[in-house]
C-alpha cells in the first residue's frame, strides 16, 4: 500500500487539468480546461473548493497575481502542482490500472 491518501474523482480531474495548463493555471482557466476536455460544465465554486482542500493537503500551492482591469481590478490566484500532488495523481492512476487489469469492459458482457 503506497503512502498517502487517494484522490477523489473531482480532485483528480482538477489536478489533471492543472497539470495540463502548467503555467497560468488559475480557477477559471482550470474550469475552462475541464469543460473543453470533458464537456462537463462545472461551477467555479466547485473548482475552488477542490483546490482549497488540496492546498491544505499540500498537493498544490498558490500565489496571488496582479489585479487586471477586465477582472474589475481583482487579482488572480495562480496554482501550481506540487510533488506530492503529482504522486497522488500517479497513485490514483495505478489504482485504476490495477483494477482494470485483465478486465474487458465490453458491453457484450450483458449478452446483448
Amino acid at each position: 500500500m503506497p503512502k498517502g491518501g487517494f484522490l477523489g474523482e473531482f480532485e483528480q480531474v482538477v489536478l489533471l487539468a492543472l497539470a495540463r495548463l502548467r503555467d497560468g493555471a488559475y480557477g477559471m482557466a482550470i474550469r475552462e480546461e475541464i469543460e473543453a476536455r470533458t464537456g462537463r460544465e462545472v461551477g467555479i465554486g466547485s473548482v475552488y473548493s477542490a483546490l482549497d482542500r488540496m492546498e491544505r493537503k499540500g498537493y498544490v500551492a498558490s500565489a496571488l497575481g496582479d489585479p487586471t482591469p477586465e477582472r474589475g481590478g481583482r487579482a488572480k490566484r495562480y496554482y501550481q502542482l506540487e510533488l506530492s500532488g503529482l504522486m497522488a495523481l500517479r497513485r490514483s492512476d495505478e489504482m485504476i490500472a490495477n483494477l482494470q487489469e485483465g478486465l474487458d469492459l465490453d458491453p457484450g458482457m450483458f449478452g446483448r
Partner: protein
Amino acid sequence: MIRLPRRRQATPPALARLLIAFLSAGPYRDQQLGDLEEAFLARREADGSDAARRWYWRQVVKSAAPNLAIRTRPPRGAKPRSKQPMETVFQDLRYGIRSLIKNPAFTAVSTVTLALAIGVNTAIFSLVNALVFADLPMNEAETAVIFRNANAQLGIERGSFSFPDFLDFRDQSQSFEGIAAWRGGQWALTNGGEPLRVDGYRVTDNLLDVWRLGTVTGRGFLPGEDQPGAPPVAMLSHGFWIRQYAGREEVVGSQLRLDGREYTVVGVISPEMEFAELAEAEVWLPLDLDRASEVSREQRNLFLTGRLKEGVTGQQAYDEILAIGARLAEEYPATHRGWEPHAFLAEDGLLDSEAKTILLLLVLTVGFVLLIACANVANMLLARASARSREMAVRAALGAGRVRLVRQLLTESFVIAGLSAAIGLGLSRGLMQGLVTISNGREVVFMMAEIDGNVLFFTLIVSLITPLAFGLLPALKTSAEDVGAALKEGSARSGGRKGNRTRGVLVGAQVSLALMLMVVAGLLVRSVIQLEQRELGFDATNILSVRIGLPESKYGDDDARRQFFEQLTERVEGLPGVASVALATVRPVAENAARRSFEIEGQPPVDEADRPTGRTSVVTPEYFDVLGIPTVSGRTFTTNDTDASFEVAVIAQETARRYWPDEDPIGRRFRIGVDETAPWVQIVGVVADTRSSTSDERVQPMIYLPFAQNPLATLVVLARAQRDALALSGAVRNAVWSLDPDQPVDDVRTMEQALYDAEATGYALISLFVAFAVFALCMAAVGIYGVMSYAVSQRASEISIRMALGARAGHVRLMILSHGGKLVVLGAIVGLAGAALLSRLLQSLVFGISTLDPVTFLGVPAILGIIGMLANYVPARRATRIDPMKVLRVE
C-alpha cells in the same frame, strides 16, 4: 475631448454577483468574482449578452454548495487560536452581563418589554398547544373518527345524533370496525353523607374498545351491558376514583347509589380519557334510552365515534357517512332536511370554525405584539449604538475583528432575550390564571392550557430567534462605525442620520402594527357594547338561582315532581329575606332556552326548515312577577292552569310580531313539534321581550309554558331576595334537604353572576385583545418618543443656529412635530390598510356593527394620533429650550 456615447454593454447580473459575493468564503471571494467577470466578458463577445448572463447565473447556482462547504472548513493554519471557542463565549457572556448591569435602565426596559411579549406569546401558544396538538383521549388516534351532525341553516357545526340515526350508521356503514355512542348525564350520588351531584356519561358497551382504552383496575363494560335488563354496572373516572375514593382498589365491586338506584362498580377508566369536557366526567354508565328517544329522530342527544377498519381511509369513511346521511334525509325529510353528518378523523375535527378563527386571530396578534416589542428593543439598541461608537472604535483599533464585535453585541441581545423568556414563562402562567379567573372557570380550554415540553420548546425557540430579530441590525450598525471618525472628538454624532432613518422605519412599523391591534380590540369592544346595550328585559338584581334536577328513578311520576316543586316553592317563599319565588327551565338570557319548531293552527303544514320556531321555557305563574316582565295583553298563568284544564301558553311580543303579525294572537293555537297527536296549545297572553341569549338575535321569540301542564324534572329556582341574594343560598339548600335529604343542590349563583358567566369566555378573550392593544400603543408611544428625542439631540446644533439666527420657538417646535408626525401618519396609513384586511377575519365575531365600523376606523387612528403627538411633543418642547450659546460653544 468629446466622448461618444457608447451602447451600454451588458454586465454580469447584479443579483447573481451579490449572491456569489455573499456565499463565497473570504479568501476566494475576489478570485471568483474576478474569474467570473473575466469569463463573462469573453463569453459576451463569443455568445452574446443573454447567453453570458445565463451562464453567469448557472455558475453562481452551481457554486453555492461548494462555497458553503469551504466556509465550514476551519481557517487555514496561519493563526492558531488564542482561545477555545467556548472560552470566547464565556468571555462574551461575562462582558455582556457586565455591560447590561452598567446600564440598568436600558436593561430593565428592554427586558420588561420583551418579557411581556414573550409571556403573551407563550400563553397563547399554550392555548394552541392544548387545542391543536392536544393529546387526544383515544389511543391510536390516527384511525379514530368523530361524527358531527352539521346543519348550516341552524348554524350548527358540531351537533349530535338521534338514537335511530346511530343504529342506521352502525348497521349500514362498512368503513368501521365499531361505532360507539355516548351522551351526558347527571346523577345524585347518595352513599351516605351529603348527597352529591355527579356528572358523567352514558356510553355504549364498546366505547373503550373503539378508543383502545383500558382500565386502571377492574374491567370495562361487557358486550350486552348496555342492553335493557342487564344488571346495573358503573365505571369511575380516574380523577373521581382518586378524589372521592383515594384510589382504593376495594371500590371495584362495591355499590354506587345513583338517583336511588344501586350500581356495581366494575372498573376505573384509565386517565387518558380525561380530555376537555370528558375530563369533568366522574361516573360512566351503560347507555340506556327512554322510549321516546329510542324512536324519535328529532331527539339528537348522542355523540358518535368510530374506529376505521384496517385499510379504510378517513376520506372513504367521510364519504360513506355523508352518503348514508343523504339517504336518511331522503327517507325522513321532515326531520332531516338541512342536516349533514360528517365523520372527521379525530385528529382533524376538534375545533369548529369560530374557534379556529379566534385562535388564528390570537396567534396573529401576539405575533404582532412580539414584533412591536422587538422593534422597540432594536430601537433602544440603535440609540445605544451611537453612545457606544467610541467603545467599539477603541476595540476595533485594538484589533477586534468585525465578526468578533458583532458576536459580542449579539451575545448581549441573547442575554436579554434569555432573561425575558424566563420572566415571560412566569408571566404566561399568571396570564392563564387571569384568564381562568376572568372566565370564572367556565372555559375548559383555559384550564387545559399548561406549560409542557412543547411550550417550553416554543419559548426556547422564541428566545433564540428574537435576539436575531432585534439585535442583528443594531449590532451590524454599531460595529460598522468608522474607526478613525469615531475616535475623533466632536464627530461622535456622525453617521447618525442613516441610523435615525432605520429607527424611523421601525417606529413607523410599530405604529402600523399597533393600529391593527387597536382596531381588532376596538371592533370587539364595540361589538360587546352593542350586545350589552340590548334591553335585558327583566330585573336581574337580588335574584338567587339554584338548579334542581330530580332523579328520574325517584320522581318518575308527573305528580311527584309537581308536588316536590310546589312544596319547595312554598318553603323557599317562607324563608326570611325572600320576597318571591318562581321556577323556570332556564335562567333567562344567561342560558339558552330550547329552540323548538311549532305548527300554527289553520296554516298549511310546511317543511321543517321553514317551520316557525320559538325558544321555550317552562315556568311557574309567579315567574313574570318575580323577574318583573310586564304583561302586554291578555293574562299570564294562574293556578287555574292545571293538567286538567286545556293547554295554554304565554308568548313574547317578538313571537307575536313574527308569527301573528296582523292579528291578536290571544286565543290562537299552535302545536309544538311534529307530532300530530300532540294537543293544541292556546295563547292566553303576551308579555314583554327579553334579550336574546345568543348574539345573533336582537330579542328572542319566547314561548312560555306553565309548569303545571309540563312537569319537567330539572328546573331553576329563582328567588328574589329583599337584600343580599347570595346570603340566601344556605337557607335554600336546607329547604331542599328538608324535603328530600338525598337531593343534590348545585349550581347556586345569583342571576347577575349567571349573566356574567354566560359571557365570561368572551370577556376573557376581549380583555386579552384590549391588553395587547394597550401594550402595542404604549410601545409605539415609547418608540416615537425615543426616536424624536434622539433626533432633537442630534439636531441640537442645527436648532441652535436657527434660534441664534432668530427662528421662533413655535417654528422650531413645528419643525420637530412635523418630522414625528410624518412617521405617525405614514405608519397609520399602512396600519389602516392592514386593519381593513385583518378585520375580515372578525366577520363571525363582530355583532351589531360592520367589520369596517367607521367609529373604530376613525376613532383608533385619532387616539393613536393624539398619543403619538404627545410622545412627539415632549422632545419638540425640549428642542426649543436648547440654549444656543451653550451648544455652539461646545462645537
